[in-house]
């Protein structure tokens, strides 16, 4: 099965700066990769989906890149705000393998201080 690695240490960042999170995977390249936000005691909230033939995707202050050669995705939060403080989860799926089975990373906690 796939091994998914996300920065285990919390990322402490000052308001206004850019937070960059990493998601590395070890085996087969997924058809697409998703990023979610999770607040304590709450369900994951979908943020962005990027497909294997896409290099970059943006949504407002969020940007995700996908490098299938490096087996890596980077997730950027620009102009970060204290409200961005949460755990960010990377999730992979392989089309043809399953109908929507997502394998999640452990997540990276982001703390944005004013």
């Amino acid at each position, binding site marked *: 099965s796939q091994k998914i690695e996300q920065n285990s240490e919390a990322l402490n960042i000052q308001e206004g700066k850019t937070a960059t999170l990493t998601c590395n995977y070890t085996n087969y390249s997924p*058809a*697409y990769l*998703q990023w*979610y936000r*999770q607040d304590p*005691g*709450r*369900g*994951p*909230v*979908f943020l962005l*989906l990027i*497909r294997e033939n896409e290099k970059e995707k943006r949504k407002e202050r969020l940007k995700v890149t996908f490098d299938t050669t490096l087996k890596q995705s980077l997730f950027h939060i620009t102009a970060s705000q204290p409200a961005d403080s949460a755990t960010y*989860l990377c*999730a992979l*799926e392989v*089309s043809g393998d*399953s*109908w*929507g*089975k*997502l*394998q*999640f*990373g*452990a*997540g990276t906690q982001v703390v944005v201080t004013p």
Partner: protein
Amino acid sequence: EPEVTQTPSHQVTQMGQEVILRCVPISNHLYFYWYRQILGQKVEFLVSFYNNEISEKSEIFDDQFSVERPDGSNFTLKIRSTKLEDSAMYFCASSEREGFEAFFGQGTRLTVV
């Protein structure tokens, strides 16, 4: 904005009892899932459901688990004879199509005592 709703938000049950966790997926979605998250651990896939049958299930989803879509709106997870290690947050999710984003509910916190 449409959302996935789950009930109850918190369930406490005695070991050995049966529980049913309920979910109402987003109405035009065709794919349904259950995931769980043990406190402090990763979100783990349990089962996917499409066209009124299980599409895939994980090793966790053994004979004590079952899923059902009893009508056009509800999607349930039944756990027979609960064990202490079943204590976790259980999330229902749905997606419009395969390869599309999954929308998660707020979860049911199951505590087995």
